[in-house]
């Protein structure tokens, strides 16, 4: 254990952000690392619980107390090894994970969890800086080949694990760059993209082949992969966005969040505008922007819109405003529903809850306003919460850009899914259990959002790792890959 009474002596301190004014001028990351001495102090707050709730609070089961202790003792390199033993990409999660581990931290009973995410991020960042992170070559090749379709965090984690087990792995990506949502969903100010690139280089050195711009199920038929590879992993994400099913949806100026975010990411990556936005530029500059949907994608839209120089940004959420503080007694160590304010929201936006969009209003085919109504949520006969419109509560919001960030319904059903003919579950995701990640089709596995529906990066990594183990076991009879 770090220091038995560290938590009583040291105050929680998090990484700091650049000032709001500065950060909206740039797409660079604005989170500033803590000095290493402070990180070790923060690590001393970890109590090394008899039951580390953070272990299971964290979807990849990071061995948090262990590396906290190592950081406290300044054994950074061993800490890095321990961290990597459960998480292939701590530099991703250390930046963009909402950190359910901190919610489940014992010190969060008192609202002062250990700064787990910060420590995680600084361990891995230091590892890159020091050159400790090198390709890990397998002892021997298995002679088996696996196709991984989709290069988001699930696919990447799966590919890396499989390569390390000695398999030949090819990752297929329909976009021009590797990374899936990591690359194009998450704005650079949250995570700069060279971070993905250096991981990719490591993976290439470990023997992973990346094939970008190849859409399996379109350019490359699934059958061909099944012929060429010993196994196929479907990790194509849950890309199908929930649409706004209202009158005048067709008006211009209403876009899916992803369309907006992808082009900006490409722009930042240095693509010329025609490549970044082949379907036309979506700009928020000088506009009154409404973001529908209160989740992380919504926040990314806000941050990006602010950087475009939007005139105003309003974010609407259909669910009621969550409580400022959760009922700890009944939620801890679970992820609590409570009011959170993201850094993007902080940068400037209005938020409104329990608001339903009733119709779009426009002129000349262009959006001008949204008509909304207030709703309330009541328990229905089946015990579930049901939404009810509040009579006479309709109002209009002036807007010239509406971004839809209302979540994702599941994988696109054409192409890959259709060709592979895998069975789907009741929610439209590819059906496979976490016991073996096997789809209904022989040799085909599925993991990540494609299997579980939209979720966190950290869940994707978990699924990728576990799926790799399942594939390895399938191919070799048994697997020594860690779960």
């Amino acid at each position: 254990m770090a220091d038995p009474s560290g938590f009583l002596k040291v105050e929680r301190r998090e990484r700091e952000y650049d000032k709001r004014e500065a950060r909206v001028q740039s797409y660079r990351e604005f989170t500033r690392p803590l000095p290493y001495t402070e990180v070790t102090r923060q690590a001393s707050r970890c109590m090394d619980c008899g039951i580390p709730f953070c272990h299971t609070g964290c979807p990849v089961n990071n061995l948090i107390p262990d590396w906290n202790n190592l950081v406290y003792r300044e054994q950074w390199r061993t800490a890095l090894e321990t961290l990597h033993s459960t998480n292939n990409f701590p530099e991703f999660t250390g930046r963009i994970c909402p950190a359910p581990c901190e919610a489940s931290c014992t010190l969060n009973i008192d609202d002062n969890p250990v700064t787990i995410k910060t420590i995680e991020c600084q361990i891995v960042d230091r590892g890159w800086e020091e050159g400790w992170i090198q390709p890990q070559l397998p002892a021997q090749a298995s002679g088996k080949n696996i196709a991984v379709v989709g290069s988001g965090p699930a696919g990447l984690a799966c590919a890396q694990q499989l390569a390390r087990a000695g398999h030949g792995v090819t990752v297929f990506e329909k976009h021009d760059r590797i990374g899936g949502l990591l690359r194009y969903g998450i704005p650079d100010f949250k995570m700069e993209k060279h971070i993905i690139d250096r991981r990719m280089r490591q993976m290439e050195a470990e023997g992973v082949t990346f094939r970008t711009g190849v859409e399996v199920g379109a350019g490359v038929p699934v059958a061909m992969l099944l012929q060429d590879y010993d196994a196929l992993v479907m990790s194509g994400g849950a890309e199908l966005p929930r649409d706004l099913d209202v009158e005048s949806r067709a008006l211009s100026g209403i876009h899916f969040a992803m369309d907006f975010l992808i082009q900006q990411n490409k722009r930042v990556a240095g693509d010329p505008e025609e490549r970044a936005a082949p379907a036309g530029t979506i700009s928020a500059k000088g506009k009154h922007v409404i973001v529908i949907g209160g989740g992380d994608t919504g926040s990314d839209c806000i941050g990006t819109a602010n950087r475009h120089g939007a005139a105003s940004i309003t974010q609407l959420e259909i669910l009621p405003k969550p409580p400022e503080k959760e009922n700890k007694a009944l939620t801890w160590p679970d992820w609590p529903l409570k009011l959170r304010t993201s850094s993007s929201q902080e940068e400037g936006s209005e938020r409104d809850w329990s608001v339903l969009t009733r119709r779009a209003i426009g002129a000349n085919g262009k959006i001008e306003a949204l008509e909304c109504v207030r709703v309330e949520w009541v328990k229905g006969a089946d015990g579930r919460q049901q939404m009810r419109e509040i009579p006479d509560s309709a109002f209009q919001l002036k807007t010239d850009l509406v971004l839809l960030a209302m979540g994702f319904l599941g994988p696109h059903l054409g192409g890959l899914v259709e060709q592979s003919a895998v069975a789907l579950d009741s929610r439209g995701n590819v059906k496979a259990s976490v016991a073996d990640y096997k789809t209904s089709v022989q040799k085909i596995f599925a993991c990540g959002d494609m299997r579980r529906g939209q979720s966190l990066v950290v869940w994707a990594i978990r699924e990728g790792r576990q799926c790799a183990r399942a594939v390895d076991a399938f191919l070799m009879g048994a697997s020594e890959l860690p779960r």
Partner: protein
Amino acid sequence: MSGLPAKQGLYDPRNEHDSCGVGFVANIKGEKSHGIITQGLQILLSLDHRGAVGADPLVGDGAGCLIQIPDALLRDWAKGAGVTLPQPGHYAVAMCFLPTEAKARDITVKQFERFIKNEGQILIGWRDVPTDPTGLGKIVLEQMPLIRQAIIAHGPQVKDQDTFERKLLAIRKQTQNPLVALAKKHKLPGIAKFYIPSFSTRTVVYKGLLLAPDVGRFYLDLQNPLTKSAIALVHQRFSTNTFPSWRLAHPYRFIAHNGEINTHRGNVNWMNARRRTMESDLLGPDLDKMWPLIPHGQSDTASLDNALELLMAGGYPLAHAVMMLIPEAWAGNKHMDASRRAFYEYHAALLEPWDGPASIAFTDGRQIGATLDRNGLRPARFIVTDDDLVIMASEAGVLPIPDEKIVRKWRLQPGKMLLIDLEEGRIIEDEEIKRTLSDAKPYDEWLKKTQFKLEELDLPDEQAVAANDAAALLDRQQAFGYTQEDIQFFLEPMSEQGDDPVGSMGTDTPLAVLSNKSRLLYNYFKQNFAQVTNPPIDSIREELVMSLVSMIGPRPNLYGRRAGVHKRLEVSQPVLTNADLEKIRGIETVLDGAFRTTTIDITWDASEGAAGLERAVERVCSDATNAVLLDANILILSDRAVSPDRIAIPALLATAAVHHHLVRLGLRMQTGLVLETGEAREVHHFCALAGYGAEAINPYLAFETLEQIRVQSGLSLKPHDVQKNYIKAINKGLLKVMAKMGISTYHSYCGAQIFDAVGLSSSFVEKYFTGTATMIEGIGIKEIAEECVRRHRDAYGDNPIYRNMLDVGGDYAYRLRGEDHAWTPESVSALQHAVRGNLPDEYRQFATSVNDQSERLLTLRGLMQFKFAEKPIPLADVEPAADIVKRFATGAMSFGSISREAHTMLAVAMNRIGGRSNTGEGGEESDRYVPLANGDSMRSRIKQVASGRFGVTTEYLVNADDLQIKMAQGAKPGEGGQLPGYKVDKNIARVRHATPGVGLISPPPHHDIYSIEDLAQLIRDLKCANSQARISVKLVSEVGVGTVAAGVAKCRADHVTISGFEGGTGASPLTSLTHAGSPWEIGLAETQQTLVLNGLRGRIAVQVDGGIRTGRDVAIGALLGADEFGFSTAPLIASGCIMMRKCHLNTCPVGIATQDPVLRQRFTGQPEHVINYFFFVAEELREIMAKLGVRTLKEMIGRVDKLDMVRALSHWKAKGVDLSRLLHMVEPKPGVAIHHCEAQNHNLHTQLDHDLIKAATPAIESGQPVRLERRIRNVDRTVGAMLSGEVARRHGHAGLPEDTIVVRFEGTAGQSFGAFLARGVSLELTGDSNDYVGKGLSGGRVVVRQPKPTKREPTENIIVGNTVLYGAIAGEAYFEGVAGERFAVRNSGAVAVVEGTGDHGCEYMTGGVVAVLGLTGRNFAAGMSGGIAYVYDVDSKFESRCNQAMVRLEKVDLAQPDDDSGAPRQRSLSVSDSGMGDPLGFDAQRLRILVERHLLHTGSARARYLLENWDASLPRFVKVMPTDYAKALAELNREKKSGARAVAAE
């Protein structure tokens, strides 16, 4: 063992224990008289209360009497029988218990007569022993043998009496040894019943399954005036069973024993291992006829008797033989003279000690004597009269001898001997016997010539170079199953601090056999520990009796042929460094080749896989045999060869296999067994290896790992220091584990097999761990091999997790990829959400995660299933939850270990639902005895009495519904509790009557319970103090616990708790947490079976605890036999505990296990949470009850037939588990209950106090002073407690004004005189008293003074027994004479003056003042952390007798400060202020007051002398001042002063 039921279910007759009262009377001059016999029988009567009766009050446990051969009586018989009796000494009497069945009898008699003839002796005739069976119980008569004596004359070949005696032994052995086989052959079980209680030319034993008063009545010989003897040795037995057995009564042929031999199993093994090395000139070829020398399956006393007779037959004089068997603590004893130490040291190589509490009275008919074990754990008092009588007994006052005839009153001291030589007609003092024997041979010189200490051997030590290749080290660590926890929790802290590491909460991981992981073989062995029938030893505070010296190499011939030439090699402790081991390897080149070492490889070829192990073990055994036959006499078993191609045999398996193999071949004594292993690292490993025969162990990989740790973590220590610290830690741990079982020396622990196997198949155990108990079957060599292979594969395979890192472990904390736990993040949060939100669904989720073990096995009960009724009954018909929860209790968690908030909340919750909460051992604030305004009560209904007796005042006792004697605790059986100083805040200190900031430790044993009859005494004491309370005894599950529970029932306890090893704790060595004790399922089942077999079940309530979590657990507990249920961890979790496992650090982040005021504020637990939890449990239980078709819990209790076992077929290890012995249903005899439904008879009506209370009513009711005078005898026990209970009920701890009730006694008081005396009650005794005077003194005054005038010098004669003022809280005591051992042990506030003490005076004292006006024994002030003592240093050697680990010795401060606010007063001010003032100063004044008070109360001549010569006397006093106490007091004074200044400034 005739009379005992056969092994069935979990019951095994070999677990039976007994203990008792013993005594003798002897005429020093050897003058025979019938009067001696009458007096002997009278002693027996006075010791009656030390025995016990069983289920049937007419059935005692046995009693008997040994006397010299009554020649006149036999001559009278011979005349009548028409035979000629030779002269005395030329004939022998065989006392025979013959089978009643004629056919069997004929065969045995013929057999006997045949051997008499074969051996050339002459049978004169058979004499019917006249008996009168009137008044004996039915069962007694049913079991009664035919009692006859065979009279035998010696044949012409026999030259002298001793030769004749040896022939008798040969005859007896040859007759007796084959009886069992013979019985089988003839199919006549009666044959095995033939038994020869005595067979001698000098003595005869009259004994039987008799109550004390019956012995004389039954044996008419004893009434016959022709029966004359100069000695009468008597014994009253108290056994743990109620099975009638005639032969188990004492005395045996040479001894009567009070106590228990803990190393019995090993001793018998070692004796039998001597087959090939024993030769005797005296016995010659007869020795070969006597095998087995000591048959298996006898009682410890019978075995000891056998050993003694063998030694004597081999020519050792009686006293010499006794000294060999039960040596005093000689190692490191600086007070012992060199020649005596040489005697013991020399003999240590010949024979391993028979270790354990023992007061042995012995006689061969020419000499009679007694000795006490090295610890002095049994009482033995003796007096010498002016007409040449010596009377020795477990108690003083057993014969009414007028005081003026008594010239000496003394006691047997630890390790000392009393010997009366009837032929010489004198008492030979300990000093003289031992000097004579020590000087008889040049032991010193022999040792100088032959003894070599490894440490001192000058051999080129080719230090094996530690491998620097980290990768190779990692591989080897993995091959031996190292985990990260081994490093983090064991090696690292051990290397830094040199201590066996401490943890908290319980263990909730699966048993090794249920685990999916590959576990080391050590994990299948659970350490045994002493409870009730013998005490654990205090290895830290009473270190002087402990020794880790180990002898490596062959043992000399026990019979000492060619004495003084046999070379011997010793190590001071058994953990060898690499250099040490190399010395042993190269030893042949020195010491004239006396030692030859052979190293045997204990690895096998990996290519053979798992199948290779069994062959490999065979190969190792045969290598060992060959080596020994080729004259190698030290074997090193080594697994150094482990590599990618070689798998290591588990070191424990290799050791035990070789050990037992060589024992069987009779070769074991010819060789030493040393281990070179990479496997051993934690304390438990070393214990197990030692327990199965390793004489020394080199843990080379542990050393390499330590070096790696040292380098990696940048420790400032040198390699040598790290190793030293580690060895120190292992040594401390070893001592603790040995001590836990009551064993003091490594020498006797080695090979003693003090373990139970859990989860090993009996065929495997029988083959390699012969004699070890295993109850639930389990894995065998195949699975063990598989585990080895898995480890090996992890080490040398490609598994990426293990590429750079060790396995996480996860045993001591929950870890991903680690071992499974019952308490997981999910189960904890589900339970907490359930109870906080009153959410049944969440509870169900919790219960399912614990109960459903189809995926992951956790507990034995996970392998059980219910046999549900075909038709369930409606839930509504099942007894309501509100009734069920009344059977629930929360566990003993002390106020101190947990916060006031948590402690009171649990009490309130339990009181609301009619359940019970338990104080734990930390007292209770008296404000909690008063109900709150809202009707709630914070009073804990169960009050615990543990070995520290913290806060156990009379007021505390009377405010209890249950008084629980904590014999052991699941988390750390055999060890005392500990509360670190930083948890002792002012409040805690006040309640515990201790000093803030000073850590508190409870002794491992209750110092008033060293034996079963002591427990009966404490039960009586408590029952007297509060007759309305149930008395409960808490035991921990281990093999044999059922037998102990039966004993507890016979001690008249109302309640017994069986705890599982999973139970929690605030702080415990990790070794104990995981490796001691067994699951409650086993202990409970054994308890139920044994109690039912004994017909005792109905009169005692049985509670189970230690890991009960759900309604299903309760249901299984009930079916296995529990009436009540204890829960600790689960309700704590319901209150907010999150299994931080940091209780011992005071940093509990949820405010439970902490006294930090900041953290305490974080406590959020509410009574409702706990109540919700218990109701959820009860509701879950009700659903099961409905399915079982039972309406009330009562109908369920003991119905094992409603349980079935599930074979875990898919589990590679658990599939071998077989619970059928556990689920065995003992068919109760008609009328015998299987659940609690009767009341115990406490026999309190004879209590002297009834009369006192009546007479003192005016005092109790209206404070009128009362003066009473009474006579008192040793059978009047616990006088004053009941009276004080009455006072405390009315007046609380404050009591009455001083001297309101004064009772003056004359005579000898029984045990516990003045126990729990309340303030206002004064007992003054003229005469003397037995053990435990002033136990728990709570403000009263006890005075014991000499009758005046007396011839005896008070400072040289004993006046009060052992363990006086144990746990005293307040009050005063004055003793005009010497006290026994452990005077004022755990005194926390009483003031006492005494004129001399035995060993261990003021041990564990935390408060109060003691003045000793005479000599003290050794080890004074051990563990003394508070209070002060003054010792009048008569011989200026006190310093050498004082244990100065925690105290410093100061001169008496003569100054009289100006500020007299801290000055002592002549009278005490209140119950909480004895008037002794500020202990830091005022010494001269305080001492003067003490001596004046002493003179006033006793009229002591010593006091008068001191006062008359005050100025000269004062400087001879030494002040004993605990260092931490002085610091804490100075701190408090500073605070007080600054507080006063602050007030003044305002």
